[in-house]
């Protein structure tokens, strides 16, 4: 059966890379006696995939891993076993069975929520709340996306699904719901840098603390009842796709 696991990454663990986390979970599954399924062939490996790698230095309360198991373990038992075998900074939040035919997290992830804060002494000179509002007043937000091979300019405004500031702290943190996945993957820094650039300021090095809050997929309205996952029908002229947390696709095992 296919299982979706939601977990956190915080504290010292934010300095582990994506490969370290995969390696960690391979061992965690064995330590916690989860009946993980193995691929067949000369060198069998655990059937496991992750939604979207988290950059080194980011924290998260909404990471996802899909695995395949050979038998059922109740969600509560699995959580207990896995958390007992885990370390500080990685907490397993849910262990849910995916419906038949559900796409895996890696191919269905379409958006993610981020909370961007500022490290001590690294806040900008401008008012963040005002600057964010001004940024979204503009008809388009053009950024330069650099990859290893090329540079391209892109209007990211349609790919920012939500934005607001949270006023609990000063300077306030910025909440962003961003397009992500294999097609239009927008990193929160890109939005922040666009804001700085508009204000003619350069962010200081490692200025931002970034926390991923959750990841989403989109459900086409006709299929909502059946909970069939689709990546169609998102983005586009002001039509907000229907986002559903990757966590909500599965159901708890009794």
């Amino acid at each position, binding site marked *: 059966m296919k299982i979706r696991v939601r977990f956190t990454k915080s504290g010292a663990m934010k300095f582990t890379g994506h490969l370290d986390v995969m390696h960690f979970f391979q061992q965690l599954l064995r330590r916690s006696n989860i009946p993980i399924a193995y691929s067949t062939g000369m060198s069998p490996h655990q059937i496991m995939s992750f939604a979207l790698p988290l950059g080194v230095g980011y924290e998260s309360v909404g990471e996802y891993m899909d695995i395949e198991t050979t038998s059922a373990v109740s969600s509560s038992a699995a959580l207990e076993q896995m958390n007992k075998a885990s370390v500080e*900074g990685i907490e397993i939040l849910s262990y849910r069975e995916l419906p038949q035919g559900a796409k895996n997290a890696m191919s269905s992830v379409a958006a993610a929520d981020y909370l961007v804060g500022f490290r001590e002494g690294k806040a900008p000179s401008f008012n963040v709340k005002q600057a964010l509002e001004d940024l979204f007043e503009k008809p388009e937000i053009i950024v330069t996306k650099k990859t290893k091979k090329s540079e391209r300019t892109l209007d990211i405004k349609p790919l920012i699904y939500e934005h607001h500031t949270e006023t609990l702290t000063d300077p306030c943190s910025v909440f962003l719901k961003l397009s992500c996945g294999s097609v239009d993957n927008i990193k929160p820094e890109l939005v922040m840098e666009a804001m700085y650039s508009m204000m003619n300021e350069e962010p200081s090095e490692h200025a931002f603390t970034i926390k991923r809050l959750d990841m989403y997929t989109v459900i086409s309205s006709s299929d909502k009842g059946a909970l069939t996952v689709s990546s169609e029908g998102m983005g586009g002229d002001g039509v907000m796709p229907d986002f559903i947390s990757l966590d909500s696709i599965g159901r708890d095992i009794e």
Partner: protein
Amino acid sequence: MRKLALSDEILLDIDKPVRYIGNEVNSIMKDPGAVDIRFAMCFPDLYEIGMSHLGMQILYSLFNSYEDVWCERVYSPFTDLEKIMKEKGIPLFSLESQDPVKEFDFLGITLQYEMCYSNILQILELSGLEFYSKDRGNDDPILICGGPCTYNPEPYADFFDIVYIGEGETQYRALFDLYKECREEGFDKKAFLRRACKLPGLYVPSLYKVTYGLTSGSCLTPEAKNENENDTDPGSVYPMLASFEPVSDDVPKTVKRELVTELSEAFYPEKPLVPFMKVTQDRVVLEIMRGCTRGCRFCQAGMIYRPLRERSLEFLKESAVKMLENSGQDEISLSSLSSSDYSRLPELVDFLIEYAENNKLNISLPSLRVDAFSLDVMKKVQDVKKSSVTFAPEAGSQRLRNVINKGLSEEDILEGCKKAFLGGWNRIKLYFMLGLPTESEEDIKGIAEISDSIARLYYDLIPKEERKGKVSITASTSFFIPKPFTPFQWAAMGDKEEFTKKAHMVNDAMRSMLNHKSIKYNWHDTGVSVLEGALARGDRRLSGVIVKAYENGARFDAWTETFKEEYWLDAFSECNVPIDFYTRRERSLDELLPWDFIDIGVNKEFLKREWKNALEEKVTKNCREGCAGCGVMKYGSGVCTDQKGVREEKKDGVGAN
């Protein structure tokens, strides 16, 4: 949530921050207020090397099993972090509590190879500790070291308060109790060390006085050499070690090596540390035995871990399962100097193969002799197409193999290769040494000849239509470095030019071989071998050289990328110390050697006898074929007394992986 010693900004700026954060599975957290002793255990190299070291895993688990002790780990920060720590004044910290090392009661450093000596000083400097023991006070941690390099601790003796000679399991508890007692009385480091030196295996360098004098073996100092080759001014002669004595009668004259006499069920970790990053030994390691019966004359491990002691089969089975379950690792490896000599190997391997199949695990079996049994096992645990078969003949001719007592004949090697080729392997690795005592040109060329014979065997044996490409033979040579407590401890070592010349000789001989296209030849860097040789048999006068080399920039000398020979050569000349004195000289049998005060159990008479046998090309039997009277019988332990379960002796000496 634990607070880290390094800020987010620093951790994001450096390479592999995961080296410095701790928090690994099975790392031990304790309440610092609830323990009496805080021990910082340091491997003075990168995290990924140190975390692969079995000895440290054993002692970490053992010390933390004591309720009153919290043992934490420290590794060398790489140069990128070192620079930042110095700029920002951040003191070196342990991984668990992230507290400064300076606040600990003990700083214990394991010394596994000579080329980490400069890193000792990096650890001390970053900890905010003085290099020399005499300059550190009552409030500084007690600096103690262990590991194979302690069999000649003299080059670094002035840095350490205590040198633990032997296996760490036996005396630390007593040392901790003594420390607690001394602290209750109001701690005085000198008084504590006075008492510590009476514990078996504990050497306190400050309680021994060394003098040097002019005798026949003396040679010129670098300064004198530069001025005048024939200088006869006594000040220009580099004197010999003349005496080595305790400062008073209550300090033991000799320090006896500690060992675990009953190893069969001796303490072993059940919950090994599991690193987040991929490290060198990313697997559960099962130590099946200690010591070796083979008596190769160049091999220090073969002497200092005598006698061979096995762990019991049932204990090993239980340990393997517990460690795999508690770590979640997907691979297990056996550790010993010569796994084929473990008397219950077939039963252990059968058990592991079955367990591994049921649990989707891998097994790796290094140090196996190539024979029908091992090839059969290897076929079961690895992919023949991807693996190679390894032999370590060490020398190119039978004559020289007799000199070094490597009881492996050309017939053995060819027979092993034949079985391997018929079994489907076509990759062979061969390991040799250059610069062994009595080595001649024929011996050197023999390296190429035996490589060629193996290739020829393959083409004769395997019909064209069954061959999967060419046979691939990789021959590697390292340079022989005489080590203390081996029969070759008196031998002269080659210099750089000689080594380079010999390596070229092998290379030319290889190229003249019929099958040279099937043979690849590698050789080790020469500069680092010469320095390792000097440090291996050095005396206390080298501490100044180590400090100088460190100040010149030497650190991470075991890494080709960071090793710079000039740092060291400059240090030798700046200190006016002739490196040749330590490397090029053959010692006379009556010379006082810097490590003579250590009693490893193997007596000096045996080593002398073996040195003589070597020169006469006489072979000495391994312990199971007949006792050679090395002296360790007195421990009444291991192979010396235990004859039950001894397997029928097979032909000697090759490894496979």
